[in-house]
Each structure stands twice: as structure tokens, then as C-alpha cells.
């Protein structure tokens, strides 16, 4: 059961890091934050790729749909986050 214990350590510590980092995200950027974490959680692509690349037909098909769905999130998520962040500009204003 060693890998399980290790994984629990990682889960909890990463949760704390996440908490501290996200707490500091400015509320102005909460929507980009959601689309960014969405893109990042598209990391399940990693598991999907292995399934799609196996030699069993069932795995390939499950993997194909999973790879497609995860890629939509990764590509679309990062792209639209960029699109949003580009809009947040500071303008020089008199006053």
C-alpha cells in the first residue's frame, strides 16, 4: 500500500499549496481562474492518451472519446483564458 500513502501525502500537500495560491487570486480574475484550472485539469489527457494508445479495442474507443474531451479542455481552456486576460488592460486615464 505504499504508493497509496505517498499519493495521499501529495494530495493533501498540493491541496494546501492550491489553497494558498488561489486565495491570493484577485477576484477580478475569478472567471479566467476557472477557465485556467479547467485547462489544467485537462491533464487527465495524460491518462486518456495511454488508454487510446493501447492494443485493446475497448480501451482505444474509451480513450478516443476521453482524449477528445480532454483536448477540448486543454486547447479551448488555455486559448480562451488568454483571450480573456488580453482584455484586462490598465488604461491611462486623466483624473
Amino acid at each position, binding site marked *: 500500500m505504499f504508493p497509496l500513502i505517498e499519493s495521499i501525502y501529495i494530495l493533501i500537500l498540493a491541496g494546501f499549496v492550491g489553497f494558498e495560491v488561489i486565495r491570493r487570486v484577485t477576484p477580478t480574475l475569478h472567471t479566467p481562474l476557472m477557465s485556467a484550472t479547467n485547462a489544467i485539469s485537462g491533464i487527465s489527457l495524460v491518462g486518456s492518451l495511454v488508454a487510446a494508445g493501447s492494443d485493446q479495442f475497448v480501451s482505444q474507443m474509451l480513450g478516443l472519446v476521453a482524449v477528445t474531451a480532454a483536448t477540448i479542455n*486543454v486547447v479551448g481552456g488555455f486559448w480562451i483564458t488568454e483571450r480573456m486576460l488580453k482584455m484586462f488592460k490598465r488604461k491611462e486615464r486623466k483624473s
Partner: protein
Amino acid sequence: MVNYSLEITYIAASVLFIMGLKGLSHPESARRGMHYAEVGMLLAVVGTLLGNNIITWEWIVVGIVVGSAIGSAMAIFMPMTAMPQRIALSHAFGALAAVLVGINEFVVKHEEITSGLMGALGFEVLFGALTVTGSLMAFGKLQELVKSAPITYKGQNFVNITLFFITIGMFVYLIFNPHDTVVFYSMIGLSFLIGIFLVLPIGGADMPVVISLMNSYAGLAAAATGFAIDNKVLIIAGSLDGSSGFILSIIMSKAMNRSFTNVLFGAVGTPQVDTSTLHQERPITKIGVEDAKFILEQSDRVVVVPGYGMAVAQAQHTVRELSDELEKRGTKVEFAIHPVAGRMPGHMNVLLAEADVSYDQLLEMEMINPTMDTVDVAIVIGANDVVNPAARTDKGSPIYGMPIIDVDKAKTVIVMKRSMATGFAGIENPLFYESNTKMLFGDAKKVLQELVAEFNKS
């Protein structure tokens, strides 16, 4: 056998993800942060493709090509106003991937599944499946494919709680009997149902909580996937996503004055509507566009409070034009954003940024409230409950205790509204009857256009 080069790319990816999210603490550093995260993702994907025993490539290529095409099309053509729907939809995609990877693991490893592995798989498919349908329901409501008002029926709580316990029971059974195919797939089926039932009774105004919660669940599903296939970068990315959604849910539920347990179990539902008090005919002060212009001209500091009504009327660009006109005349204009204004966290900020409002003009509720009494005019555009002073004063009000933007403390309040109808929660708003409140009726965009035109005349 540990594949060291693969693990190193995963560690690098994890660090880059954290640095990426750290960048979001300020608009200046946000884009650089996202570039870090993108590099991290690329590393993880390339590392996986090279470091694993990939036998067939054709399906991988098909999936990546199709996914990239759909993803980029959505990113390019989706208008900013459709952002809440897009976010909801993407939670469904992420969770779907997690569920499918879980099912694959179950199929492939079938005979050798241990109780421990089933624990991880169970969490993965449970959270994944309910996030898929829950997010699709949220998408449907936001896109108005499904009635966005709460859908309730008699015995709803009983049905939901029973379903919930049956599913948990199945999960526990599976941990002791990890090879039971029928129970495994039934559990997934029930989780899909729970997702639907969970979001059914939730109305449009509660969407910020639902979307944050789904964000968190999608992350937890990804983290559980990491446990199931023993992949550390998945655990880290999933728990970052999970904690992000969790924090947003806390912020949203606080801003709506709901208890956190209430949110955690998704039992958001509708507040009891109290229509008894205040319904008598009381005088309100109606004004026209010229009067509004006259009031605004005299002011040194104006605060705009936008709500979902601004998004519906697509009035953000016209609001910015008004703000420009006022600033030209030396008036200081700021925007006060309530955390739950709109349909998702940060909704108003994105719309106003799209309309070219400078981000340092966008202020949080806590920043603006202490100085509200020095504000000459507060303009409320399509917001209602988030400026309702009953939340501060009326203990009988369903929204009592909810933090609000104290526009009633400004010297003058101009409320732009279609009619005297109550807000989403169906609560009467005493603000409209205050002596310093002027009501400017009409479609927000049209009224604002007329107002800008009025300024251009002189």
C-alpha cells in the same frame, strides 16, 4: 520500474501549473503565468507520449485533432457573454474524460482490482459522472434550453437523499467486492442521475455556486484518476483544481449568505419567498434621462453597480461610453462588483474588461463600501438583491445577513430597471422607496444610449 525522465517532466509540469495559477494574483502577471502552465501541459503530454508504451497512434491522433478543432473553435467564436455556459460545458468535458479513464481501468484491470484501487476508481467515476450531468444541466439552464427557474416537486429532497445513500451503499459494497460489474455500472448510472437531480432545483441566480462546485468536483475526479492510475501530476493538478473550486464556492456562498454545508451538499435550492411586507403602494421618485444627466453632471464621484441585467441587456459597452463621458468632465468613475453579480464568479469583470474598462476601475465590494458615503451618485444597472438594504436591516428578510453594496449610503442613487418587478429571490427592495433613490425605467442599454446621447448634445 520508475521511468525517471517521465517523472521529471511531470514534476516540472506540476511546478509550472502552480506558477501559472500564482500569476493570476494580478492582471499584470496573469498572461505570463498562463504561458508557464501551457508549457507545463505540453511537457506532460509529450512526456507521456514518449515515456509510455504506446502501441497504436491512430486514435490518439484522431482524438487530439478533433479535440483541438472543437476546442479552438469554441475559444475563437464563443462570445464573452456566453462564458458561463462555456465554463459549465468544459467542466462536463473534463469530468467525462475522468469517467472514461475510470471505466477503462475497470475493464482492463478487471480481475486484479483490489479494494484500494476500487476506492480510487469509485471516487473518480462518482464525482466524474455527477459532474458531467450536473454541468450539462447548468449549461442547459444558462443557455436557456432548460427552464432556468428552479424545478421542484413534492418529495424532491427525499428522492435525492435516497439516491445519494443507495449510491454510497453501492460504493461501499464495491470496495469489498471490486469485481462486480453490474453494481459498478449501476453506480455510474445513478451518479449521472444524481447530477441531474442536484441541479434541477437550482435557479439562475444561484449558478455562481453551482459552477464553482462543479469546478471543484471536476478537479476531485481528476485527482482520483491520479490515484487510480498512480499518476502524481494528475493528483497535483486535480487537487489544485479542486481547491480552486472549493475556495470559489466558499466565497460565493458567503456572498449569498448561505451556510457552507448547504452548498457542499448542493442543496442550494430556493429561499423562502416572503411577500407579505412592504407591498403597499409607496411613493417612488421617477426620473427621465435629462434629469439623470443633470444629476450626473453635478457629481465628482460616481460608482456603477452592475448586475445580471447589464449582461442580459448587453449594456457593458454603453456603460463604458457613459463612464468615458463622465471622466472627460472630470468625474471619477468606479465600478463596484458584488461577488455573486451575474452567473459565475467574476462575470461582471470579464464583461466590463471586454468593453475596455480599465481593470483598476473595477473594485470589490469590501473596497467600495467604507467610502460609499462620499459617493455622489451610485448607478445601479440591472442589479437588485445585491444592493437590497433589507439584507442589513430587516431580520425577517430571506436575504438578511447577506453582504451587499451599500448604495443607499451614497448621496443619490439612480436605479436603472425595466419595471418595479422584484429580483430573482422575489424580495421587495426598500431601496427603491428611499428619498435619495431615483428610478430610471427602461431597457438598460437603451436608457444608457439616450443618456450618452444627452451628454454628447452639450
